[in-house]
């Protein structure tokens, strides 16, 4: 890219006549063509990558939503129940030691 810019600026400073010709030559040059191809390839790959990561994220997210979320909620509830029971037992436990 830098080479293209330099060539452009040098052509504008030297003379005007062959400018369109030079511009055409520059835009038709191999480097520009290659650059174009590389950038379009990069865009294509990026797009594909983005799409596939998006899809993977969607699958992972929905799978998590179905497999893990209910389990986490239920385990949390269970833990709450256990806490409550423990609390009640410790409250009652003040008078309970004779149980031993």
């Amino acid at each position, binding site marked *: 890219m830098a080479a293209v810019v330099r060539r452009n600026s040098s052509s504008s400073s030297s003379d005007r006549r062959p400018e369109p010709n030079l511009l055409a030559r520059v835009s038709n040059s191999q480097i520009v063509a290659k650059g174009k191809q590389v950038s379009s390839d990069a865009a294509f790959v990026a797009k594909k990558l983005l799409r596939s990561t998006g899809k993977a994220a969607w*699958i992972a997210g*929905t*799978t998590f939503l*179905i*497999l*893990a979320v*209910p*389990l986490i909620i*239920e*385990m949390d*509830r*269970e833990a709450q*129940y256990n806490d409550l029971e*423990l609390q009640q*037992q410790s409250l009652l*436990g003040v008078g*309970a*030691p004779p*149980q*031993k």
Partner: protein
Amino acid sequence: MAGQAPPGVLGQAAAQSDSKIDEVKKKVDYLDLPTPIPYEEIHRESLMSLKPEFFEGLRFDFSKGLNQNFSLSHSVLMGPMELPSQGGETFKTPIANYEFGANYADPKLMLVGRVLTDGRLNARVKWDITDDIGLRANAQLTSEPHMSHCIAHIDYKRKNWRSQFQFGNGALLGMTYIQTVTPNLALGGEVFWAGVPRKSGVGYAARYETDKMVATGQVASTGMVALSYVQKISQKVLLATEFMYNYLSRDATASVGYDYQLRQARVRGKIDSNGCVSAFLEERLNPGLIFLLSAEMDHKKKDYKFGFGLTVG
């Protein structure tokens, strides 16, 4: 809690030593092995945790006991039903079904009848004639011709083996046999012959069971190979894997699942190699009131099925 712990530990230790003594005794006496579980139930644990009854739409089940032995059940199911069509694709049509059932349960005799509004009738009998001989029969009658079938099983059980004869319509004859070989291992085999699609086959099965795990394997000449492994992490948690392979059609599926039994709920989840994720939640809201949530997602086919339901009674 702290006060209760020591007796629990002691009890456990006692139970452990008891089981150890038992084990030693069993290892000595190979003639006194436990009775194996029936041949068709060898995958029981993995089936229980990997294959709950998934449904789509709404379901409502209500059952009421009239007296000690007799109970009636009503069930409503509404939702899309898959109909296979030409071209391999399935499309869904909404249906609504009401099912009326009557059950009679007695320690020796169990009768179950079910009638659906679309004319299907299902009847089951389970009768323990003596302690060793049992009879089971299952009949399904539909209004469509050639879709009704019935099958009867006679179970015979001895100290360390079980065998079963089965016969059904379409000249179906079968026999299974399962024998405990060591205290942990049971081996079995089956033979069947069907007259109408003119098929016959044999199958073998093995089941290895300890307190911590259950491993089963089954091979049949129909091409089916089924292996399953269930690990009991604790009393409440089971992890199960299953591998199914058909060597005639060469398709294989593997699935992994969990089964959590909590005080208020039971959660079962499963993922398989076809990209199908499913979960089944049973939440006990009140005694006798269970809320069901069923989810099934097939990423490959883009098929999503969700259902909710209520079981009363």
